[in-house]
C-alpha cells in the first residue's frame, strides 16, 4: 500500500482510530461527558477529513476500495449521521445507563462499517463493511439490556441479519462461482444471454440479503420491532447510516455489473419498490407508536429510493444521492426530537406523548413537523424536492406506473404524518421530561443540532440548487461514472 492509499483511506482510518482511542479513554475511566465530547470532536475530524481528500478523487485502493465522489458523499452522510446521533446521545444515555461509554466505540465501529460499504468495490470489502456494521448494531440495539424490548429487538435483528447475511454470502459465492471474480467490475458478463441461472440465482440471493438491510417488502417485518426496541439514537442510526451504506454499495454493484439490463432483476426490483411503497405506507396508517410509524415510513421511503434507482441512469444516480441526503436530514431530525423527548424509562414512542407539544415546546414541535412534512413530501421541505427528483427520474425514463404508485401511496402516507402533527397541537398534556434542566449545555447543543437539521430541511426545500450542483460535482469525480456512462 502506498502513501496515497493511506491518504485516500484517511476517513476510514480516522474512524477506526477513533474507536480505538475511545476504548483507551474508557480504560482511563474518564467520565461520560469527556468521552462524549471527545467522540464528538473525533467525528468532526473524520468528517472534515473528507474534504481533505477531495483533491485525489477518484482513487482506487487496491482492488477492495474505490474512493470517489459518490463514495465520499455517502461516507459524508454516514459520518454526519453518526455525528448527529452522537450529539443527541449524551442526555439519552446519561439518564438510562450506568456505563454508556462503550456505546461510543460501537457507534464509531458502525459508522466505519457503513463507510466501508459505501467505498467498497469488492465482495470482500462489501462483506467486511456489512459485518462491521451489523455486528456493531447487534450490540447497539440491545445496548439497554435492562429493557425487555431491547433484548427482543436485539435477538430478532441478530437472527434475521445473520440469516440474510447467509443469503448474501451464498449469492456472492454463486456469482463468484459463475464469473470467477470478486471485484464488481470484473464480473461484467459479455452479454445477458450468456448468463446462467446460477448467476441469476446468485443475484437473487444477494437481493434477499440487501433487501433485508434496506428493509424492503417482503423483508421488512423486522423493521418496526427493531426500531421500537432499540434505543432511539440507535434507531436513528439504523434508519439512516446503515441503509445509506447498503444502498450505496448496491448502486455501485449494479452500475459496475450493469445490472439494469437484467430484466428479471429489474422486474423484481420494480415489484419490490411498488410493494414496499404501498405496504410501508399502509402499515403505518393507524399505528400509534411513533418509532414504528417511522419504521414503516422508512419501508416506504426505501421503496421511493428504489424508484429512483431503477432507471439506472445518471439522473437516477443524482436522484438517489439527493434523496438520501434529504432522507438523512429528515429522519435524523425526526428521531432527534424523539430522542430529546424520551424520558428516563421509556422512549417517547406513543404519539399521545406528543400532545400539545406545539404549545409546550414549539421548537421541537416545529422541527418534528418539518420532518413529518418532509417525509410526506410537502413543498417547502426537503422531502418534496427529493420526491420531485425521484418522480422526474421515473417519468423521464417512462416509469409511469411506478410514479403513479409512488404518488398514490404517498397520499396514504400523508394521513399518518398528519396524525403526528395533529397530535402535537391537540390536547394539553405536559410531557416534557424534567431532566432537560440538568444538562443545559447538552440540551442546548442538541437543540442547536436539531435546529440546524430543521433549517436544512427548509433550505433543501426552498433552494436545493447548491446541493444538486454539489452532487453533480461529486458524481463527476466518481469512478462508476467513467466505467458505464
Amino acid at each position, binding site marked *: 500500500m502506498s502513501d496515497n492509499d493511506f491518504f485516500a483511506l484517511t476517513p476510514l482510518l480516522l474512524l477506526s482510530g477513533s474507536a480505538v482511542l475511545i476504548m483507551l479513554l474508557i480504560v482511563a475511566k474518564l467520565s461520560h461527558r469527556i468521552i462524549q465530547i471527545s467522540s464528538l470532536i473525533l467525528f468532526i475530524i473524520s468528517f472534515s477529513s473528507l474534504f481533505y481528500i477531495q483533491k485525489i478523487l477518484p482513487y482506487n485502493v487496491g482492488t477492495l476500495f474505490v474512493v470517489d465522489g459518490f463514495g465520499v458523499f455517502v461516507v459524508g452522510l454516514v459520518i454526519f449521521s453518526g455525528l448527529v446521533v452522537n450529539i443527541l446521545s449524551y442526555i439519552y444515555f446519561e439518564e438510562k445507563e450506568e456505563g454508556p461509554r462503550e456505546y461510543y466505540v460501537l457507534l464509531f465501529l458502525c459508522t466505519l462499517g457503513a463507510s466501508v460499504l459505501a467505498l467498497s468495490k469488492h465482495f*470482500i470489502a462489501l462483506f467486511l463493511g456489512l459485518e462491521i456494521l451489523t455486528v456493531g448494531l447487534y450490540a447497539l440495539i440491545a445496548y439497554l439490556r435492562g429493557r425487555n424490548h431491547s433484548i*427482543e429487538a436485539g*435477538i430478532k435483528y441478530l437472527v434475521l441479519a445473520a440469516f440474510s447475511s447467509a443469503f448474501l*454470502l*451464498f449469492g456472492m459465492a454463486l456469482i463468484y462461482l459463475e464469473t470467477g471474480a470478486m471485484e464488481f467490475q470484473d464480473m461484467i458478463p459479455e452479454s445477458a444471454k450468456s448468463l446462467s441461472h446460477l448467476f441469476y440465482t446468485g443475484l437473487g440471493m444477494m437481493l434477499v440479503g440487501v433487501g433485508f438491510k434496506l428493509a424492503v417488502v417482503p423483508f421488512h417485518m423486522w423493521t418496526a420491532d427493531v426500531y421500537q426496541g432499540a434505543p432511539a439514537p440507535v434507531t436513528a442510526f439504523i434508519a439512516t447510516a446503515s441503509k445509506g451504506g447498503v444502498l450505496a454499495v448496491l448502486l455501485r454493484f449494479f452500475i459496475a455489473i450493469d445490472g439494469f439490463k437484467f430484466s428479471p432483476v429489474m422486474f423484481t426490483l420494480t415489484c419490490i419498490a411498488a410493494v414496499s411503497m404501498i405496504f410501508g405506507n399502509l402499515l403505518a396508517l393507524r399505528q400509534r407508536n411513533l418509532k414504528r410509524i417511522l419504521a414503516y415510513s422508512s419501508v416506504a421511503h426505501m421503496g421511493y429510493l428504489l424508484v429512483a434507482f431503477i432507471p439506472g441512469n445518471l439522473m437516477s444516480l443524482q436522484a438517489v444521492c439527493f434523496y438520501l441526503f434529504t432522507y438523512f436530514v429528515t429522519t435524523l431530525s425526526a428521531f432527534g426530537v424523539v430522542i430529546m423527548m424520551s424520558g428516563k424509562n421509556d422512549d417517547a414512542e406513543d404519539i399521545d406523548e406528543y400532545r400539545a407539544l406545539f404549545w409546550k415546546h414549539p421548537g421541537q414541535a416545529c422541527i418534528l413537523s418539518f420532518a413529518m412534512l418532509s417525509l410526506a413530501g410537502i413543498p417547502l421541505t426537503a422531502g418534496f424536492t427529493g420526491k420531485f427528483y425521484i418522480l422526474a427520474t421515473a417519468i423521464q425514463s417512462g416509469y409511469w406506473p411506478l410514479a403513479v404508485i409512488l404518488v398514490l401511496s404517498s397520499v396514504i402516507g400523508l394521513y399518518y404524518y398528519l396524525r403526528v402533527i395533529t397530535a402535537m397541537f391537540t390536547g394539553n398534556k405536559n410531557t416534557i421530561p424534567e431532566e432537560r434542566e440538568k444538562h443545559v449545555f447538552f440540551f442546548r447543543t442538541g437543540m442547536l443540532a436539531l435546529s440546524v437539521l430543521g433549517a436544512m430541511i427548509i433550505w433543501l426545500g426552498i433552494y436545493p440548487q447548491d446541493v444538486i450542483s454539489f452532487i453533480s460535482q461529486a458524481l463527476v469525480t466518481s469512478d462508476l461514472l467513467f466505467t458505464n456512462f
Partner: protein
Amino acid sequence: MNSSVSTEIVMLLAGLLFVLGITGVVIRKNIIFMLLSVEIMLNASGLAFIAAGARWGQPDGQVMFIFILAMAAAEVSIGLALILQIYHQHKSLDIDKLREMNG
C-alpha cells in the same frame, strides 16, 4: 491443484446444507437451535465460496471463508450474550414467547 471431487457435488452439498439451515431456523423454537441453524447456513456459504475458489483456482474463496468464520464467531458471541439475557428475563428460550412487540 487436483480436485477429486467435482465442484457440482460440493455446491450441491453447500446448497443442501443451506436449505437444511433454513429449515432449521424455520422449524426450531429454541433460540439456541435457531442460532445453530444460522451458523449452518453461514458455513454452507463458506463452503460454497471454497468450492468457487477451487473452481477458479484462486485463494479468494478461502479468504472469504475465514472472514465468514470470524464473523460467525463474533455473531455467536453476541448472540449467546443476548440469549443469556433472554433466559434471565423470561426463564425460557422459546422464541415464540418473545413477541411483545407487534402490530
